[in-house]
């Protein structure tokens, strides 16, 4: 016990001495959360669209102004089609709307009038938005303009409700998930670096030759980085709730528990990587590849897991961030939903135990 205490204290000293620890535990999370909050914007998509009107009848001025007055479209008028095409090639506009010269005539004759919408498919997501916005605006204009033409007919009205996030604020969804990515930094990367540095410098070997038991060595690393991670997590939650005004509807105690399980899997993963690599370069890259990138891509943070192919979905089961993101998003937006927390926690606990056992097995007590 005394040995463990000494090891933990030594580790804390080392942590405090290196400014990069503070950088990774507090400054980097803060910067990243700011980027997620201010630079990532998944809900209001304003797209630049070019408009060329070949029909010069006064009738359609209201259509043009409905394109001008929507918050979704930044409209640019063109007279020259070639110029418009060139601008789309350059990426200055993401779509083109062309109203042909027989448009109003055909409308008056009650024939199907045509409008061409051409999008920049190389920005696949935006292309979808352009097409949908344009169709919706045209439909709305048509309904307004020709109200008196509408015969009385039954309609099916959709009453849409978005539970847990009525206004569909995407930051409420991104920030709680982003905490998982940030935690991989302290959990996997920092742990991997610290342990592999000890192997690289030979201090780990020196430690092994002493009376210190393996459990002491392991716990001597687990405890300090676990504490640092929890403090860093608390700081992250503070930023989300106080600075960025994300609601927190669950219990903080449950959140602390779930974070603890998550952190244990991360530290385990980082420790295991460095035990196997014993080299800071390899360890940091493995941490990036096995920890950070999967947490960003396969955890359901941005991209929905259920839409992925079966094989990738299967793979995501081994990413502990997936379980944490599920819990975190629920705790922030929905509250305490045990149907989700309990299975997810069990997965994380099992994972962390497996990692601990593997580290125990691979930390050689003798030198080779």
């Amino acid at each position, binding site marked *: 016990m005394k040995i463990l205490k000494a090891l933990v204290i030594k580790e804390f000293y080392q942590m405090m001495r*290196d400014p*990069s620890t503070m*950088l990774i535990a507090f400054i980097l999370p803060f910067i*990243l959360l700011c*980027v997620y909050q201010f*630079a*990532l914007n*998944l809900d209001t998509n*304003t797209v*630049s669209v070019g408009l060329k009107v070949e029909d010069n009848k006064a009738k359609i001025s209201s259509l043009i102004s409905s394109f001008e007055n929507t918050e979704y479209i930044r409209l640019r008028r063109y007279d020259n089609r070639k110029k418009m095409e060139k601008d789309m090639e350059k*990426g200055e506009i993401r779509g083109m709307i062309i109203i042909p010269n027989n448009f109003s005539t055909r409308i008056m004759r*009650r024939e199907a009038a*045509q*409008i061409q*919408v*051409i999008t*920049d*498919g*190389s*920005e*696949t997501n935006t*292309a979808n938005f352009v*097409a949908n916005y*344009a169709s919706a605006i045209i*439909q709305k204009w048509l309904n307004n303009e*020709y109200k008196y*033409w*509408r015969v009385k*007919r*039954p*309609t*099916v009205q*959709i009453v*849409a*409700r978005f*539970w*847990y*996030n*009525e206004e569909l604020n995407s930051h*409420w969804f*991104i920030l709680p998930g982003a905490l998982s990515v940030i935690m991989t930094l302290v959990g996997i*990367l920092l742990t991997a670096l610290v342990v592999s*540095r000890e192997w690289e410098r030979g201090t780990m070997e020196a430690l092994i030759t002493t009376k210190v038991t393996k459990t002491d060595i392991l716990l001597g690393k687990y405890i300090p980085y676990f504490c640092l991670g929890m403090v860093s997590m608390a700081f992250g939650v503070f930023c989300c709730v106080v600075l960025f005004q994300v609601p927190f509807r669950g219990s903080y105690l449950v959140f602390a528990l779930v974070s603890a399980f998550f952190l244990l899997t991360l530290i385990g993963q980082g420790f295991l990587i460095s035990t196997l690599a014993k080299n800071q*370069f*390899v360890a940091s*890259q493995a941490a990036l*590849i096995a920890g950070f*990138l999967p947490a960003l891509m*396969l955890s359901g943070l941005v*991209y*929905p897991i*259920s*839409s*992925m192919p079966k*094989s*990738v979905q299967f793979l*995501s089961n081994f990413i502990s961030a997936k379980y944490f993101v*599920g819990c975190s998003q629920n705790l922030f937006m929905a509250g305490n*939903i045990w*149907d989700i927390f309990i299975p997810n926690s069990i997965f994380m606990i099992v994972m962390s135990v497996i990692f601990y056992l593997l580290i125990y097995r691979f930390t050689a007590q003798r030198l080779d």
Partner: protein
Amino acid sequence: MWNRIFTLIIKEFYSIWRDPKSRTLIFLPPLVQLCIFAYAATMEVQNIDMVILDKDNTVESRELSERFIHSVWFRKIYYVENEKQFSRMIESQKVMMGMEINTDFSKNLKGRKEAKVQMIFDGRQTNVSQILSGYTSSIVNQYEKDVFKSGYNDLPRVQVQVRHWFNTNLTYLDYTVVSLVATLAMVIGILLTSLSVAREREIGTFDQLIVSPLRPFEILIGKTFPPLVIATIISTMMGLFAVFIFKIPYSGSIWLFYVSTIVFLLAIVGIGLFISSICRTQQQAILGTFMFQMPAMLMSGYISPIENMPIFFQKLTFFNPIRFYMVIVKGLFFKNMPADVVFTNLIPVGITAVITLYCAYWMFNRNLD
């Protein structure tokens, strides 16, 4: 002089190549990640599970439910008896959306009144809900039209003809693969350089390098060249993967691809070397590069478009080489981007390369005295 640089370059190659673990780490992951993430990073929503509470249970309401079952986007439809089960399904995220049809649905339809259907989306998955609500309206609109064909013929109609240029079928996979080729090129470029100076400094060999006859300028070339070559090779491999395995047609010029890739990698290597040269330990160097890499990835225009960011962040992306390289790579793959557009996008990248490489050089120089 060239002889000295050449020796240094050989040594640098050797130090990357020597360790089998780092060798594997450099070549394998980019290609594996390209294949996995290409399928993962999709904004398309598929395999939707849904719950239906049909209180009306008439021919009309069942017909509406059928529409969802037969849609390609949906996978499983659960029917429940009461509201409690309904909300529990949504709460526990068993389903992504729910539809509730009231008892007066068919009565209102027949009476030519407004028939309401309640759609519940899970706001916890903001993006998905947004897309789902789009799918839902199109399904319901189609249902409305089919059921009341007669009411529509005498109305003025506008046909919106949508064409998608450059990626005709809007294949999401093509878009992600090409974006990933650019992103992973950055990851690998940073990976190769971030440690090169810091590691030597930690071990002490950097001092030896400085007291050797090598000039700072020569050290800079020696440190820049090997990562540049390796990263270019990996970029080529990823590009070939995109064309031959993912079957994405490459429409632009090969030369423009290489010119811009090399300028881009120079900027990345410059950033890596600069960070590495100001750090005392490897740990600091790794964390320093993360400090650059993560915001750079998020602000590359891949996850969310640059045009929607606040002006301050938009200005900041001027120093983000990946933002411009992403435009170029997408342009070359999909649009056959002409040389003048490529070069306008390449200028800021070139500026970043010059500045960061000069800063790294200055750091090496400073170490001499």
